[in-house]
């Protein structure tokens, strides 16, 4: 056993103690954080230079939808 093996084994044992429900929370939580970040972006970052003239010109909508689908998927499967 090298120090790398010992370190790896210790890390492995620690990760084994984390319940899968907490892991799911981590996956879903990460997606929720990204979603909140997208929603908080200033509109100049998510619209064309001249501003959004149509509803589909705000990228928050598409990005938010993609992430919400992910959140639902990782909550269920």
């Amino acid at each position, binding site marked *: 056993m090298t120090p790398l093996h010992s370190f790896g084994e210790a890390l*492995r044992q620690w990760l084994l103690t984390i319940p899968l429900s907490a892991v*799911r929370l981590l996956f879903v939580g*990460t997606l929720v954080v*990204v979603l909140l970040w997208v929603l908080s972006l200033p509109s100049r970052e998510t619209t064309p*230079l001249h501003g959004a003239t149509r509803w589909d010109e705000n*990228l928050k909508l598409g*990005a938010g939808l993609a992430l919400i689908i*992910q959140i639902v998927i990782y909550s269920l499967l």
Partner: protein
Amino acid sequence: MLLAATNVLTLPDYLVIALYLAITIYIGVRIGFHVKTGKDFFLGGRQLPWWAIGMSLVATDIGGTDIIGVGGAAYKHGMAVANFEWIGCVPAMIVGAFVFIPFFYRSGVYTVPEFLERRYNSAVRSITAFCWLLFMACNLGIMLLASGKMMSAVFGWDEAVCILATALLVGGYTFVGGLAAVVYTDVIQCAVMIGGCLLILVLGLIEVGGIGGLRERLAEVEQRAAINELAVADTNPVADSEISESQNSSNDSNLNQTSLILPLDTQTPFPWPGIYFGLALILSPAYWIGNQAIVQRSLGAKSEFEAKAAYVWGALLKNIIPIIVAVPGLIALAILPDLKDGDAAIPSLIGELLPAGLRGLFVAAFLAALMSSVDSYLNSASTIVSNDFIRRFISPNISEERLLTIGRITTIVLVIWAVFFAFLLTQMQEGSGIYAIFQTLMAFFQGPAFAILLIGILWRRATGQAAVVALLCGIATSITLYTLNQPSVVESLGLQPLFKIQEPFLYFSIWAFVVSALILIVGSLVTKQEPEEKLQYVYRSAIRRSPVIAEQTPGAET
């Protein structure tokens, strides 16, 4: 996987395939008439629309072997393989769209390594360009070979002819039309790919009695597998103890088929730490933000907004890919539970479900997936050779027209190389082992490359000298970990393998990223900061500019 006998193609099938190929060639050649400069060839003249780029991103990501391989992996390991398309793509694409793509687009670069030179120095550019070129050039040969083998096995066609025909066809339209031809043919290919896979999904679900029927059948298959395991344990005490030791893995097999999150001790290559830390946080952003073949098409967008929109559109499309590619693997498991080879799942399902005439649509989908990946890697490898080596080191003042010629010559050379390399691999006995090694190669340098890109953008203090050392040390870390996990090496050293799962490439990337990031941070603090004027040049472009300023800079929005 030899299923040619069950998948005999008929005249209507061949007509569908011929129609698809004719449309692809027509589009590629027609676009070629408008290509006059290097910028047209490498960046589509910066006139590409978001919807085409978004579909191209998805088509490029799904290769011919993925169509069969992802379904096969779902058959063997369950839906966990979908992580590669879901959490392994969507968040990274969204973050990439709003954080990284603006940096690349506003700086007006042709390649990611070129951006790294502006941020760091020419050594960083050269190392990353070399790594990507090596990977792409080898991968071109591997993709041709893997697809040739698959076409030969599934459709009964001659392997050598498949390799040559694919190379000629894809090389032809990429040579003529460059990135624009690649992107617009990808649109057709993406639509055909989704259509073909959707057909199998719908027919498969009808066959098993809908989603409820699929779940019931999968439960029966899992139940039967559990009974078989117990029977083996009863007759074999050694096996009994092995089952006890891997209790977690046995338990997780009961929820494997439809679960995305698998325990650390799973027998599959997809334990959750690898998926979360290795895939979602490192390999996926490295791929969507640092892979030249991916990023290049967004650099060809009409405007920065369209470049971002393309990534968001791609992320939306990515949500449906596992449903049409991986779920058929589960349907195959429900209908044909006794296949020995997972890669036989999708071809067998086609033989079972699709009538003559509709098989041609699936073959077209397979060809579409194959061609969309080969053409992208071909064009991007050509871009790196032309811009990061020839224009950077040999002929800095080269004209746009001459650059176009060089790009086209490079494309031909790469096609010849890819065919040569594919045939060279066929001569080697362990072709499949080589394929796995080259997949691992990507994990070797993607982690370190992403570390320097990420920190370089987020932290002004990061220096070029530290970046070079960090990049090299990160690559060395991956290679060392890989070596220390090889059975022959660990046996000779009298050690245990470092990792307990098969194909631990996700773990290589985690540690390589961590080492590179740490070295870059520490190294930057002890080396001299980059000149302010240089940083200004990179970071100033990241600040949202007024339309007036934007018009004065390359890559500006119009």
